[in-house]
Every structure is written in C-alpha cells, then in structure tokens.
C-alpha cells in the first residue's frame, strides 16, 4: 500500500483527516437546520408527523437536548388526545426508541428521564419487564442502576396490594443482590441494598427462620472477608450485621464556679432531665435551685446549669440515673446506677462568670418537668433487632473469627480495626474491663501499620 518512501501512506492520512473535517462540517450544518425546523414547527403549533420525525433525528444525534424531549412529549400527548386507541402503542414505541439510544449513551440522564415519564404516563406499564431491563443496565452503569432498580421495585410494590406478593418481590430483590454479590462481592451497592432489604425480607418469618437468615448472612460476609480481606464493602456489612451496643450516658463532671451560685454539669451526650437532681452542701443539707439546659430548644443538652438559690458551696450531687435522666437518641442508654459525684470548685475567672451570667439572660427556658416520658427504647431502633441471636455470644464468636483471620493476615488493617470494634462492643455489653488491654494492643498495631490514620486510632485508644 505504501510506496518505497512511504509517502503514499502519509498523503492518505492527510486526505482522510481533511475528508473527515468536511463531513463533520456538513453534519453540523444539517443538525442545526433540523433544530431550526423543529423550533419553527413547535412555535407554529404544527404538531404533525414531520415535527415528530424531526425530534427523532435530533435526539439520535444528541440525546441530551432536553428541550427537544419536551417537544417530543408535547407531540406524544397531542397524538394521544387525537387518537386514544393508539396510546399504548405510542408509548411502547418510545420505550423501543429508548433502547436504541441507550446503547450509545448509557448514562444520559434525559434518556432515563423520558423513560420514566413514559412508564408513569402510559396506560399499562410493565414494571416486571423493567426489572429485566435494570439487570442489564446495572452492568453498564452501576450507580444509577441501583437507584433506578429501587424506583422500579417501589412501583411494583405499589401496584401489588397483597402482602405475600410484596414479600415475593422483596425476596426476588434479595436473591438479585445475592447473585450480584456472588459475581463480584466487592460491590458496595449490592451489600448496601441487601442491608435495606433484610428487615423487610424477614418480617413475616418465624424467630427461628429469622435467626437462620442472620446466620446465613454472617456466613456470606465471612466468606467475603476471608477471600479478600482488603474488600471494604464486606467489612462494612459485617459491622452492620453485628450492630452496635448502645453506649452509656456518663456524667463527666460537676463544677461550681468559686463564690458563685453556679454549678455546671457536663454529660457525654445530650440528655433531658425528668426530675431535679439533688445537691448537698458540706453538712449534707439539701440545696435548692433552678436547672437550665444549655441548648437551643427541645430541652436536650449535654451541659446543664444549676443555679443555686443561695450562694453556698455545694459539696456533691446525687441522683438515680435511670429515673432522673433520659438519653436523647436510641444509640445511647442510661446506666442503672446511683450517681454520687463530688462537685469540684473551679476558680472563678472574671470573664467566665460574666459570660455565664450573660448566658443566663439568654436562657429561655428554665427546666420544667416534662409532661411525657418519651423514653426511646434503644432496642426499638436497633438495626439488628430483626434477629434474636444472643448478642454477647455472637460478638464473642465473631471476635474469634477475626482473630483467626489475623493469624493468617496479621497486617490487615480492616481486620485489626474490626477486632478493636468488636472487642469494644463486647465491653459495652458485658462491662468486662480487662478487654481494654487487648483493644489497646490492637489499636497500637493499627497505628504501626496504618500511620495515615493514627490519630483516629489514638483517639479510640483513649
């Protein structure tokens, strides 16, 4: 093909480039003409077949031109109003048109938008068939695919009134996630979807069956972390499965500004008081005063101010935790114990008291006993409440599982982090303080191997 000096080939390249440019220029001109014609027709309300064909041609070149999609929809609705019988067919043609274009532009938002409009507008949408389409789409565009899948499933569920049919759909979705995970388990979306589905899947099951499902989930996720300990999605699902023991509210400290009637109470989380705590002076005489939460509204605060009626030095504060305070969220619980804390005297700095005084003027609400005891049972919102396996035994077993993995992969950051987390969970549920040692050792190892995140681990250590 090339002559001795290879010149022939070069010339051909140049020629080809030139020819291509000419063709492109021609195409652009053509396209602009189409758009012009279409605009004109729509302006003149010439809603005919020509106008429709113009939109087709334009969209084939440029499926993101949303104005043209709008025109097309106007034309379709106009057609429907003139000829109701053809309605279903018209929309079905649109769905076919979509399939032609989606192959070239799988991620075009406006294409999907149009499809959704069709499905929502047409007389008989086939949501089941949509699921089949989503399957294919997921392989092309995972992120939007899952969203669309949820959209389709929600429609399927709406259509179906019957509870058992809904259960079928949910089960199908669950099996779908299983397939996707089996294909490639480093698939965050699949695991995530699964976590959303699980509570719905088990809702009609017996306790025994639910626990079986839980065990099955654990087996699945353990297979994943052992096959690839670097895979984040699996570890995150593992953590989700085991859940979190609610942490306890703690009274961190009680302070009185010297020579002032102001006592400051600090908690590790926002709480609400149900009744006034008792404060005593050095002679064990009760002291009276007013309680103020340091917060915006809603009555939850992590810092509370107790303004004594008289300027006396308070010695200690005593109250029964369970009957006196309420946690603000379901991830915290109140310990069953009597708190008896000494009040520490703080040197009153001029500035500090003035600030607190000024704050007092801003405090809208003196605490009053709440009318209803809105106690949020931590168990209710517990993401793991769908199964009833013994939590303590479970976390013990899984600690073993992670320890075994660490024997094979001592430097696995995820395994170490998980071990620390699970040990902490065990600690929270059992109060076994000797667990702290192993937690610290684990975190130290983490600091060693993952120096980027060492501050996080150091904080956890504390």
């Amino acid at each position, binding site marked *: 093909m090339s002559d001795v000096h290879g010149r022939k080939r070069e010339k051909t390249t140049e020629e080809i480039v030139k020819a291509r440019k000419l063709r492109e220029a021609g195409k652009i001109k053509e396209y602009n003409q189409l758009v012009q014609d279409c605009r004109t027709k729509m302006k003149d309300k010439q809603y005919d077949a020509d106008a429709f064909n113009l939109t087709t041609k334009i969209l084939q070149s440029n499926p993101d031109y949303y104005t043209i999609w709008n025109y097309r929809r106007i034309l379709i609705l106009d057609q429907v109003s003139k000829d109701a019988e053809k309605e279903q067919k018209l929309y079905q043609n649109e769905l076919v048109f979509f399939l032609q274009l989606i192959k070239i532009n799988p991620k075009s938002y406006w294409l999907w938008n149009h499809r959704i409009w069709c499905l929502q507008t047409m007389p008989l949408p086939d949501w089941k068939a949509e699921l089949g389409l989503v399957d294919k789409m997921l392989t092309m565009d995972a992120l939007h695919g899952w969203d669309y899948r949820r959209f389709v499933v929600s429609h399927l569920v709406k259509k179906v009134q019957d509870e058992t049919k809904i259960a079928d759909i949910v089960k199908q979705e669950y099996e779908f996630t299983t397939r996707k995970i089996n294909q*490639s388990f480093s698939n965050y979306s699949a695991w995530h979807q699964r976590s959303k589905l699980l509570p719905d899947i088990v809702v009609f099951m017996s306790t025994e069956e639910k626990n079986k499902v839980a065990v099955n989930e654990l087996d699945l996720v353990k297979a*994943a972390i052992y096959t690839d300990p670097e895979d984040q999605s699996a570890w995150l699902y593992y953590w989700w499965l085991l859940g979190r023991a609610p942490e306890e509210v703690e009274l961190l400290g009680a302070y009185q500004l010297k020579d002032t009637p102001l006592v400051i109470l600090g908690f590790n989380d926002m709480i609400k008081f149900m009744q006034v705590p008792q404060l005593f002076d050095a002679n064990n005489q009760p002291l009276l005063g007013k309680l103020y939460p340091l917060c915006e509204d809603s009555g939850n605060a992590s810092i509370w101010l107790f303004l004594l009626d008289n300027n006396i030095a308070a010695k200690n504060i005593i109250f029964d935790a369970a009957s006196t305070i309420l946690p603000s969220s379901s991830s915290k619980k109140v310990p069953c114990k009597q708190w008896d804390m000494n009040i520490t005297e703080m040197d009153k700095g001029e500035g500090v008291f003035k600030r607190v005084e000024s704050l007092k003027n801003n405090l809208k609400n003196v605490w009053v006993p709440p009318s209803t005891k809105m106690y949020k049972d931590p168990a209710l919102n517990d993401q793991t409440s769908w199964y009833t396996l013994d939590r303590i035994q479970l976390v013990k077993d899984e600690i073993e599982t992670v320890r*075994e993995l660490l024997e094979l992969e001592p430097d696995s950051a995820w395994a170490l982090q998980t071990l620390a987390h699970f040990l902490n969970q065990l600690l929270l549920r059992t109060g076994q303080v000797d667990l702290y040692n192993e937690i610290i050792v684990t975190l130290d190892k983490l600091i060693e191997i993952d120096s980027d995140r060492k501050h996080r681990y150091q904080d956890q250590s504390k």
Partner: protein
Amino acid sequence: MEDNLEETNFDYIVLGTGLIESILAGSLARVGKKVLHLDSHQNYGGNWSVFGFRELAQWYETSINYEESYGSNFRKVELKLYPNQQKEMDLDCSKIADMDKDLVNIWFKQLDSVQEKNMFMDLLKASRSYNLDSTPKLLGSRDSLVETLISSGVGRYLEFKSVDDIYIFDKELKSLEKVPSSKEDVFTNKAVSLIEKRKLMKFLTFAMEYDINHVLLEGTQAMSYIQFLQEKFKITGKLQEAIVYAIAMVDDKASVKTGLVSTHKFVQAMGRFGKGAYLCPLYGGGSEIAQAFCRVCAVYGGIYILNQPLEKYMIDSETNEIRGIVTKEGQEYKCQKLITGIDYLNASWLSQEKEFGTWVSRAMIVTNTPLASTDKENFVADGLSYAVFPPGSDAGNSDEPIYSIHQSQESMACPKGQYVTYLWTTSKQDAVVKNAVDLLLQNNEQHNVFTVFYEQRVRSTKGLELPKNIIPCSDPDQSLNFQGASEEAFGIFKQCEPQAEFMPASEQDQDEDY
C-alpha cells in the same frame, strides 16, 4: 484422485493431516514454499480424527479387524449402545440409507435386541450431530498456539468456547468436587473452609505475580512443589491435590519451579477470554485446528490430495535421502524435504519392538445427564469443564492421574440434551477408565446413550533412524492441551526454515485494520 497434477516437484511433501503435520503444511506454504499435502484417508485429522456416529461405527469395524495388527494405533475398541428400554417397536429398515446398508448388516449380526438395532439406525441418521474427538484436548488461553492463531488470523476459521469449571475427584465424598480457581469460585464454594479460602487466595495471588526473586522462594531449590505448598503456604490435603493435579497439572515429584511456572501460566490465562483458563474448540479439537491450517496452506498455494494410498518412497541410496514418493497409481511426486506422521514411515525404519510406543486408555461416554454435576447449586447444565482423578483415587489409578473433559452441545460434540464425557489415562492398572466411569455414573447406567472404550497408541519420534530429509511428527499424546504439539510443530518449522517467520500476520489484515 485420478487426474495427474501438472506440478510434480515440491519443496515439501507433507504426509498425513494430523495437527502437527497440518500446522507445518500451513506455515511452510505461508512463507512461500511449494507444499504437497497428502493423506491416505478420505477425512482430515489422521490420528487426531473426529467422528460422527457413522464414522465411529466404521472405525469400530475396521479396528476390530486390526486388533492384532502392528499397524493399528487404536485397539480394544468397545462400543456399546444403551437404548431406551421402554420403546418396544418393530424393526423398521426403511430408514436405512443406501450407503449404510453394508455397515448395518455387519452391525446387526452383533446387536441382540430390537431396541439396539433401532437405536443404531437412529444414530446413523443423526450421525452428523455428533463430533466425537478421538484425542480430545483443550487450548490453554495463553498457550503459544493461541498467539499464533490470533496473529496469523487463522483463528478466524475456528470457534471456541470458554471452559469455566474444573473438578477434582474427592476420595471422601466419592464424587467430583469443584476446584475453586478464581476469586469468585473461592468465595462461593461452600465446601472450602474460611481458612482454606484465605490460604488459597493468598497462594493464587502469589502465583499470579510469580517473581523468581520473591523472598518466599529463597532456599527452595531442593524442595518439591508439594513441600513448598505445605511449608510456605500451609496448603495440605484436598487443596494441595487440587493445585498440583488440576491446576498446575504436574506430578508429586515436580520441582518448585516447574510447579510454579505451570500454576502461574494457569492463573494468568484465567479470564483472558472467558471465566476459566481454557478454551474448548467446537466440532472437535485437533482435527478442526488441523483443517484450519490446511486451509491456510491451500490459500497460499498448497496442493491437497486426500484418499490417496501410497506405494513407496523414492530413496537415493548414495545420499540416504528421500527424493519423493510414489502413489499406488504410479504417480511420482518429488520434494526437497518430507514431513510425515509416523504411520507413513517404512516399517523398517521403526522400532522392531512389538510394543513401540505407550498406550493411553480412553473412553467416550455419551449420556443424557451431565456427569460433572455434583455441585447441584451452582451447576450450569451445559457448561464445559474438565476433571482430574488424582493418583490414588477410587478408580484404582495408583500411578497416574485420569483426565476427563466434559462437553455437550455447547461444543457441538453431540445433540442437545446429551453430554459427552471424555476420559483418559496412562495408568497401567486394570480397568481404570471403566472404574472412573462407574464412579461418575454412580452405578446408574440408565443415563448412558452409548459408550466407547478404546486404547490409543502414542509414539514419539525420538530415536528413530530415518533418511536425512524426513522429519517425523509425533502422535497426539496424553496431555490435556495442545502445547506439546504446537511446540513440536514450531520446532520442526525452525529446523526446516531457520530464517523464515512462523505464521506472520497477513498483509491483508494490516490494511483492514487501517
């Protein structure tokens, strides 16, 4: 062929259309050599032949007669039919085609029941829907033959399907168990414990990145592969067997290097075309690939003569070189060099021992259920797979492994709804292949459609004393893949034409890409 060719002088004459011979015919013609390619049979393939049912029936017949003959490469052929016993029909001989009348007469003398006779006639009618390979093999996805097929464009004449699954015979469970070879497999395989999953993944990753300077390899020169697996990866038992016999396909004496090189090749080949590391040629293996090369040969001017029996060689007694060949009709063809399958060599040049070569026990089992279906959950009924019975399995093969390839309509080996299982071994123990088949069928013969047991001879070309310009080609051997054959072909090519390029890409292709 009665017509006389104008051309009677060639650079090369190639005798036999086996795989190695055909690769050579194609590659030599490709670089401009004048090639005459000749086969005394009417079909392509030689000892690599693929049979439809009719050919199978005929082969059986002729082989029976040759059983005691020294010239035969196949012996102890047993073909058995398993008709559906419920069909009690009359014998309907109107179905028989004229060409088959003789064959049917011979066979009817041996078949007992009406059902068998009817079945025989039905199978004859459906003959073309079977493509049974007498020496089945798979193509490794990174074998040098693959590169040749791609770069030369010969691959376009062929079709392949991915072989996604591997099985190994488990002594405890007495059945085939899946060998997890990919991350996906390891994850989903419930028979592999968590710890084994980790060990296996760690090892596969190591094998994938095989680097001779890796710290784990220090001081391992004296170790065997098995020892290496045990000491460095704590891989023992079933997992070890699977790696050694089904993945690396070496034996228990293999060195670390040999084992790792093979394992590395396997892991690298995985996922290249399909999920697994192997491809299965459609319509039969060696024969199809051979024909593709014959086509290349013809395209580049090679001459083909089939069904041509030969009389003798023309030898120059002074130089001890071949000048050419003479056909039974007296036609002479001259050449510079001659490449041939062993069957065309003069008996006087071959070893005088009665047992020249080694025998491979083989079987073709056609069933109506897949035999590699032990994993009921993940099993895909029409999938292609291969399996290994390691030495020491219940089939009695204490010395050598048994290999099997599982095919179906997917590879066009048989009609839809049927499955073909090929088995073979070089084990010298008795009835090994039969035992293996029994284990697979689990004593349930009901699944059989028909079965063929036979032995195939493998002769090597080493140590033959031939005239200077004759280059012999080995028989198909007992390996699972085509690597040995393609390497031999390449070696012979380089020997014949040291300056030439082996199967260069065609100019036409270059233009098309542009």
